[in-house]
């Protein structure tokens, strides 16, 4: 994965994992913009499976409501681990 930076457009993964994830269902497979890095934390999905979890950057990712729900003039900013994100232009 290329280095992520604020302003970059990303698509969230659309897969529905078997176990715990912090990628909310409403924000899957959606295109958003990176706002700001929110620290480096072990991936919650792995920790929930009893593993130590790989530390990786977490990002505030801003979505237009219309892109998430098909309606709305607001934005929703979700906090997502890099593992959930694919930069636009790179094939998943």
């Amino acid at each position, binding site marked *: 994965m290329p280095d992520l930076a604020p302003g970059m457009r990303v698509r969230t993964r659309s897969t529905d994992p078997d176990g715990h994830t912090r990628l*909310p269902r409403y*924000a899957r497979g959606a295109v958003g913009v990176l706002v700001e890095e929110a620290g480096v934390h072990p991936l919650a999905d792995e920790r929930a499976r009893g593993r130590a979890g790989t530390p990786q950057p977490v990002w505030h990712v801003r979505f237009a409501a219309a892109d998430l729900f098909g309606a709305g003039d607001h*934005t*929703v*900013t*979700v906090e997502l681990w890099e593992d959930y994100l694919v930069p636009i232009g790179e094939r998943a």
Partner: protein
Amino acid sequence: MSGTHVGSPIAARVRHVEALLEHRGLLDDGEIDRRIDEFLAGGSPANGARVTARAWVDPGFAERLLADANGAIRELGLSMSGGLQEQRLKVVANTEAEHNVVVCTLCSCYPIALLGPSPGWYKSEAYRSRVVRDPRGVLREFGLQLPGTTRISVWDASAESRYMVLPRRPAGTERLGEEELAGLVTRKGLIGTAAV
């Protein structure tokens, strides 16, 4: 054994696990309640109100608060390190052009150190599922009618950060001191479901 439990199946299961942990000597009697009390100690919306009032009277503090909230609240003797590790705090400022509102759609993450225990509605499925889709409608139900020209930003506390909204300073409060200003700030104002 910890104190209050409601009569739901999940509570019964938790109580059973707690009893087993105590029986095997992994938990002391009453340890969970003690840990929870320690975590909640000092957590109150009065802290968020103090932070807000300081930001209203001190533009330099406001700037530091928005850039590095954890560092700024330490200036007031506050911290986000009441739990297992210090949590990152993100403060988002309301302006005439933009109104912020906070939710945790996945569970009920909340800045306890600055706001105290969360209100029941914050944890309800109705709030958590609806405010991301229709914040303008939900805020109207809270009695907050925003002008159509004010953009709404919803923040979902889906990972490790906790969020506090910095409300707008009400008009006509130029003569008030910091303490009086803090008295105007409400918990809903700090979550974003009300103006101050």
